[in-house]
């Protein structure tokens, strides 16, 4: 006879679910409102979404670190909290970008579903980072991805449909690889809980080719799925096209949020291998990262469109970060979150600057929205905007004292520290490659500055800030201040991140 199932509410520890529940509840609320009342202004939905995100941030802050809940599916640890905070803050900065000057220019925002889907995506990403169960990771990943495909397609241009379909198909294939990776892990260890997997692998031992081949195969398959989402070569192919096709804020958002979520998963998954001293996996990740950052930098160099250039640059930044992930030290992991936190301000700002100049008619180029020529001579027409854009570009190229510089500094110093700690000189080579790549990257960022400051305008068509509104200006102003003043908060921020990351043993 079956035992009656009894579960006490305390053991569920539902508080661990609260951030996601808030997002999902908010999404349902938006759908309900739409059901009962048509044609509400988008401003209302924007405000509502922001409110929900605010509450979500509050809930995330109130979480206790290192707790499990909901049949031990949920795992709230330091990296979960810090990544959720990055996700939510970025979302909070992304959503007001919907408030462009003219109300009906970009009609994706006039659908309440857009905001509901957005919140579902946020919830999916939050699930993804706060669990170490492969099932829940998969479900969170797919929830977020499916919402994201739709959000991209809702931009409703020819390019956005093409982008969505490319992203979707490759995403489906990547999902297949994620599942096969899980199958291999499950087959070798008999568990889909990563902490169990770690224990079992530990006890099985990983010496010799026969015992390592299965875990290594699992790592390769997983790296395909992770590399797709984080955009590592050669799984990055979707990135430039999707960024080009989707709206600029969405592209900026995609360059941060889904990546940071997947990086947390990678940290959890590859952390097992690194803790077991399976160096092959570290080498694998580092080699792929180095190829990624080098090739994407080279491709960014020859781009003619600023948005596409930023897409390639974000690929190279991802390669940068993944290289540090392979080290597995606390400093490296903390630097990754710091890097993305700081990179977020700058990159979102750069994309927002493209966004306010976006015009439905492609007036400067047959295909591109933001060719370099569009910005030539910008300093004379829009001096403030040119200076702001220049600050973002300088920051992206890692020039002190702007925000990304500190990210790079900590990241590279974590590599150097690791080299010193292990006494392996090859990690110094890695650090040198990273520095060289930064130097190459500076070229294409500065190219835009050269266009803005030194070239005369190519034609009479003036760059018009059609979409400029108070909301956009506020967000950009905030991002610029955060970029410039990073020197004042980077130290406490790093301490906070390090505290969170180290408290859960990463």
């Amino acid at each position, binding site marked *: 006879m079956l035992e009656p199932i009894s579960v006490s509410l305390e053991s569920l520890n539902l508080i661990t679910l609260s951030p996601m529940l808030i997002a999902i509840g908010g999404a349902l609320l938006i759908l309900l409102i739409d059901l009962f009342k048509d044609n509400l202004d988008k401003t209302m939905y924007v405000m509502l979404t922001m409110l929900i995100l605010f509450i979500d941030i509050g809930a995330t802050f109130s979480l206790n670190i290192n707790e499990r809940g909901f049949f031990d599916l949920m795992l709230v640890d330091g990296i979960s909290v810090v990544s959720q905070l990055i996700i939510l803050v970025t979302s909070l900065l992304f959503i007001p970008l919907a408030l462009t000057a003219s109300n009906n220019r970009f009609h994706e925002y006039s659908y309440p579903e857009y905001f509901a889907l957005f919140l579902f995506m946020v919830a999916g990403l939050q699930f993804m980072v706060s669990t170490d169960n492969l099932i829940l990771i998969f479900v969170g990943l*797919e929830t977020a991805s499916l919402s994201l495909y739709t959000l991209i397609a809702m931009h409703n241009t020819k390019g956005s*449909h*093409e982008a969505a379909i490319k992203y979707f*198909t490759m995403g489906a*294939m990547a*999902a*297949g690889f994620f599942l*096969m990776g899980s*199958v291999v892990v499950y087959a070798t260890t008999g568990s889909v809980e990563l902490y169990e997997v770690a224990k079992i692998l530990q006890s099985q031992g990983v010496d010799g080719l026969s015992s390592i081949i299965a875990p290594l195969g699992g790592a390769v398959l997983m790296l395909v799925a992770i590399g797709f989402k984080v955009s590592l070569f050669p799984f990055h192919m979707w990135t430039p*096209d999707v960024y080009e096709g989707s709206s600029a804020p969405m592209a900026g958002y995609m360059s941060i949020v889904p990546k940071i979520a997947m990086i947390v998963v990678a940290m959890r998954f590859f952390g097992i291998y690194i803790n077991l001293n399976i160096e092959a996996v570290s080498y694998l990740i580092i080699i792929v990262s180095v190829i990624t950052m080098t090739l994407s930098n080279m491709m960014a160099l020859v781009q003619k469109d600023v948005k596409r250039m930023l897409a390639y640059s974000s690929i190279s930044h991802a390669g940068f970060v993944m290289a540090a992930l392979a080290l597995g030290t606390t400093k490296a992991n903390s630097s990754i979150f710091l890097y993305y936190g700081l990179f977020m301000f700058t990159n979102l700002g750069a994309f927002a600057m493209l966004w306010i100049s976006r015009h439905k008619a492609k007036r400067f180029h047959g295909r591109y929205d933001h060719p370099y020529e569009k910005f030539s001579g910008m300093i004379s027409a829009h001096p403030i905007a040119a200076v702001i854009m220049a600050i973002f570009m300088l920051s992206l190229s890692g020039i002190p004292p702007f925000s990304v510089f500190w990210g790079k500094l900590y990241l590279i110093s974590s590599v150097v520290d690791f080299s010193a700690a292990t006494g392996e000189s090859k990690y110094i080579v890695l650090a040198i490659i990273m520095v060289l790549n930064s130097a190459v990257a500076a070229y294409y960022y500065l190219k835009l500055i050269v266009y803005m400051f030194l070239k005369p305008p190519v034609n009479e068509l003036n760059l018009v800030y059609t979409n400029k509104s108070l909301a956009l200006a506020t967000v950009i102003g905030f991002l610029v201040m955060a970029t410039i003043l990073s020197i004042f908060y980077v130290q406490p921020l790093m301490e906070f991140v390090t505290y969170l990351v180290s408290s859960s043993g990463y």
Partner: protein
Amino acid sequence: MIGLSHYLVLSAILFSIGLVGVLRRKNLLMLFFATEIMLNAANVAFAAISYHYNDLSGQMFAFFVVAVAASEIAVGLGLLVILYKKYGTLDLDEFTVMRG
């Protein structure tokens, strides 16, 4: 006697068929079929391993995969419909505006 390894080989074959389908097919609809085959290949393996270890999580995983696959195909078909309306074709070679 059919054992775990047979199921795993079947799963691998299915996955390869799906993969080849994804790589070779030019019609978007066929591509979707192929990705579904890849997902279901994983399902077969999950179910078999779950039975082998006498552990339910594999079967649970399979159920979730089925659910996700269903919603994925819903989104995919939605995209496919708009795309067909815009381009009048489902041939992958036509969607090459963005490149380089």
